[in-house]
């Protein structure tokens, strides 16, 4: 399977928060500003990322700079996965 962080994250957000690809979600769209994800929805997002990419997201990492748009998540994950190359990439299996 192709390793495409952006596609996977984008699809998750559409499937779980928008429910139909109405074209409103851009890579830079702020989830909070646009109302796509509320403060409780963030918990769902974190659970998904932790499970899919087998990473542990620390409390201090739960900040909008890391998680508030598809783009922010991808950059955050790349940093995180890059820093921990031994982590099993669940999706790649």
């Amino acid at each position, binding site marked *: 399977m192709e390793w495409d962080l952006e596609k996977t994250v984008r699809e998750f957000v559409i*499937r*779980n928060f*928008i*429910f*139909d690809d*109405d074209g409103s979600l851009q890579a830079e769209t702020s989830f*909070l500003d646009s*109302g*796509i994800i*509320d*403060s*409780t*929805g*963030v*918990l*769902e997002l*974190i*659970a998904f990322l932790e499970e899919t990419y087998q990473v542990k997201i620390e*409390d201090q990492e*739960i*900040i*909008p700079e890391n998680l*508030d748009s598809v783009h922010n998540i991808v950059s955050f994950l790349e940093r995180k996965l890059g820093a921990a190359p031994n982590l099993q990439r669940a999706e790649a299996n």
Partner: protein
Amino acid sequence: MCGIAGILARTESATIQEKTFLRMISALRHRGPDESGVYLSPHVGLANTRLSIIGIDGGTQPIGNEDGTLWIVFNGEAFNYVELKSELVEKGHRFATPTDTEVVLHLYEELGPDCLNRINGQFAFAIWDSSREELFLARDRVGIRPLHYYCDAHMFAFASEIKALFQHPDVPRTLDAEALAQVFTLWTTVTPRTIFRGIEELPPGHYMRVSKNKVWVERFWSLPARLMENRRVPSPGAAREELQALLTDAIRIRLRADVPVGAYLSGGLDSTLIAALTSRHFNNRLKTFSIGFEEERFDETRFQREAVQHLGTDHHWIFARNADIREHFPSVVWHCEKPLLRTAPVPLYLLSRAVRDQRFKVVLTGEGADEVFGGYNIFKETKIRRACALHPHSRLRPLLLEKLYPYILNNASPGQAYLEKFFAASPQDLLDPVFSHRVRWRNSGRNCTFFSSAVQSDLTGFSPVHVLIDRLPPEFSDLDPLSQAQILEMEIFMSNYLLTSQGDRVAMAHSLELRMPFLDYRVIEFAMRLPPHWKIFGLTEKHFLRRTFADLLPASVTHRPKQPYRAPIREAFPFTTPPDYVDDLLSESAVRRAGYFNLAKVAGLAKKVRAPAAVAAGETQDMAFLGILSTQLVHHQFVENFGARDLEPIVPKKRIVITRNRSHSFDEATILSC
């Protein structure tokens, strides 16, 4: 308590068909199962179904005055009727019944519309004033009792519930897209609008005069919110004494009934206080009622038990299982007549049935204390957000946000940074007249994206919040922030949701009358004089109320933080085998046929919310799911299949028929049976 309905023909050619008229009142049988009566003239009809509480044997409605020029149908209570009656007797009025209804009629005869300022009660009524050829309708100050109407060039029709209006073939049954957007954003419609196009409600604290050619609506009471410098604030000690006296008296007059009066006891401060005052001063064998939940996070049984032990009341529990909520949700929507974003009305519907089974017709409740004395989290949220906006560099203030909504966050928080951004407010935002509710409405308003493209295009240029802002009184922006938030909460949410969907409708579904001492207008007016920090002291809600009555309550209740009354949503609607009405109404064909929602989005949302291992979180999505399901139910029950429902016809006990006497110029009254 009763159901009322009526018609005024507005053209000479329009006459009232008795059969249609009886169908209208038959639709309100649940509101008044004891007896019924009609007044019919060629151009006017009044009808009543009665739940007999005061003057049981002699109070059949409609009731006329001494010379038969005025006729009244009345729903509710005028609690101070005893005092009013003595005044009227002194002025020479003669009474034929022992009822409060007749007192209201003579009070109108004496004072006209000013009579409303004298009535301490919860009511919706109509008086046909035959000498003025005018219908006079009024609704209590805060909207405890409902009153809806429909008006076109040919007729004016009114009724306690919309389903009675729909019995008339000329009354259209279509949903209003703008009202739907209001419900999805503000959690309810904004008065006078209802979810049905062309059907309005008389706003709380208003009266209405209707003649053949004219309809006019006037306000007689508004929430007395004043600038701090214009308030006459008593000393704390005097204020406590005043509140003790007022609330006790509010209960005293609310116990006036010729049937036993019970009380709801949720285990929270407000209902425990009402039960405590009642059993201490008036009834030491009080019967109380409460709800327990299958879902632990909604259950308050432990606190109810402590309150019962402390008060020594004779207590009756019901238990709300998730399956009960699912099963009875369609009936609740039928009674509430609007889409619902919460399931909380369902257990109250089950409770009223249990109370009725115990042969009670009347209960006291603690409703209204949160609005009047500052109990809601949204008031505290506003306080914190204001503090953050005024001190943007404070590190400590935003930490308070995390404490606010533990019941929504399920004891897991997304983290401080997120809450800060979610609730963020800038100094500029403080100028927003609806600052207190903006975050809530922005959040729920997002659910309007589930509407179909047809509904979205109907909504082009429409803003539910702007409509509301336009209705705010001119002095609103100068008031203190708590008063502003209280006004919004009381004007929007209290009468249209709390007192209807969690109040009148689900209680009257089982012919049960609720009485709310905290909503005695004297208590409201007193509370609005108190400084805001007496009500919410630091972040302690209802501080003044707690302190005033601390001696009367168990410490566990006095010191217990408020737990909002809520009921499960996603736990009640998982996929089941075999499928049931939920699957039918959310099927692609049903959603397409109704036309309100986007098919793909509804399917995606339902799949997520109803999944066996539904992930925690998603309060807003739960509300979207329930809003969609209940809108489908409204459509199914009121638009698509309305005529299919069986209606047991009422045979009126009292029938007053006015026929045009051709040999005389007057009308002649014929009382056919009484």
